[in-house]
């Protein structure tokens, strides 16, 4: 373990945890309302670590849906991680042992992906960095769920603090840092446009996040064409 790398990972997780706080908290509160115990809500955050998927589970539970429906919806929502994880493989090669990389990938989320990819543009990945970033983010998610499930009734609106904008703000900043090549800007704009267009034309994709997958695949392919011509 390299202390410096791990510390850097933990440092980089601070904005993520700040953003998870209101989201995990709200999940804890809502899970309670949907009939989950404090232990179940907290364990779900520990075992699943999939914000969108967990919220969808609550929605289906409250609509009286079946366990099978929840799992199927989660298959769709989590498919995007296939893309994320695959795009990390070239970075891990020769830097991160496969066993450690696979195990730690448990902690791969939209946010940890965004932050770590930004880091890998200038520093090679290390097991210590990934462990620091992922485990600390995951701990934040679990803790905020526990807080929400136990203290939910006592806390009034956390939106007053503006924390609901933490994750959007983080995505904006990381997007700015990561679009270096002209082709990146083109890919990013196409992807944003396609994602909204698909969500507009097929509203169900807004819920299962399939619009992200389709937009990413098309936009990345467009990037290849653009690049080819130069």
């Amino acid at each position, binding site marked *: 373990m390299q202390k410096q790398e791990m510390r850097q990972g933990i440092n980089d997780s601070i*904005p993520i945890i700040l953003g998870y706080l209101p989201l995990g908290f709200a999940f804890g509160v809502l899970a309670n309302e949907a*009939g*989950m115990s404090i232990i*179940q809500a907290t*364990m*779900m955050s520990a*075992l*699943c670590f*999939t914000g969108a998927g967990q919220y969808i*589970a609550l929605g289906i539970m409250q609509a009286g849906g079946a*366990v099978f429906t*929840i*799992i199927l919806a*989660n298959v769709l929502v*989590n498919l*995007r*991680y296939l*893309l*994320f*994880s695959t*795009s*990390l*493989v070239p970075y*891990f*090669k020769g830097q991160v042992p496969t066993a450690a*990389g*696979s*195990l730690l*990938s*448990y902690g*791969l989320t939209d946010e940890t*992906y*965004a932050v770590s990819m930004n880091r890998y543009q200038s520093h090679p990945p290390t097991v210590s960095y990934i462990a620091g970033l992922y485990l600390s983010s995951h701990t934040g998610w679990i803790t905020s769920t526990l807080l929400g499930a136990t203290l939910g009734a006592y806390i009034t609106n956390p939106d007053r*603090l*503006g924390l*609901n*904008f933490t*994750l*959007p*703000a983080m995505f*904006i*900043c990381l*997007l*700015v*840092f*990561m679009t270096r090549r002209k*082709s990146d800007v083109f890919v*990013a704009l196409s*992807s*944003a446009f396609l994602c*909204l267009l698909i969500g*507009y034309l097929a509203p169900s994709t*807004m*819920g299962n996040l399939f619009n*992200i997958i389709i937009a*990413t695949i098309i*936009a*990345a392919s467009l*990037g*290849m064409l653009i690049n080819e011509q130069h």
Partner: protein
Amino acid sequence: MNSTSIWIMIIGVSIVSILPRILPVALLSRYEFPAPLKKWLSFVAPAVLSSLTALSVLAPGGNIDISINNSYIWAFIPTLLISVKTRSLFYGLLAGIITMAVLYNFIF
């Protein structure tokens, strides 16, 4: 939903959310990707980030809301300007969070 069903649901969701994250790293690491695939994959991060940004700002409640009443769009502007200007995540976040807090408490 009873307690047993909830536990089954949690374990099921856990499996389907963990597998797609772990399997590519576990199974594909021993292969050397061809150059065009590597190039294609290098566009995945900007594309994903951009989609996430678009959704989180233009559809904060899960439905697309492109109007002056969407406070996320207003908070987007200073966040973008500050992050381009300073190239700092810290100041970018600060700009966004403060703007959102001000909008929430005094305007919307």
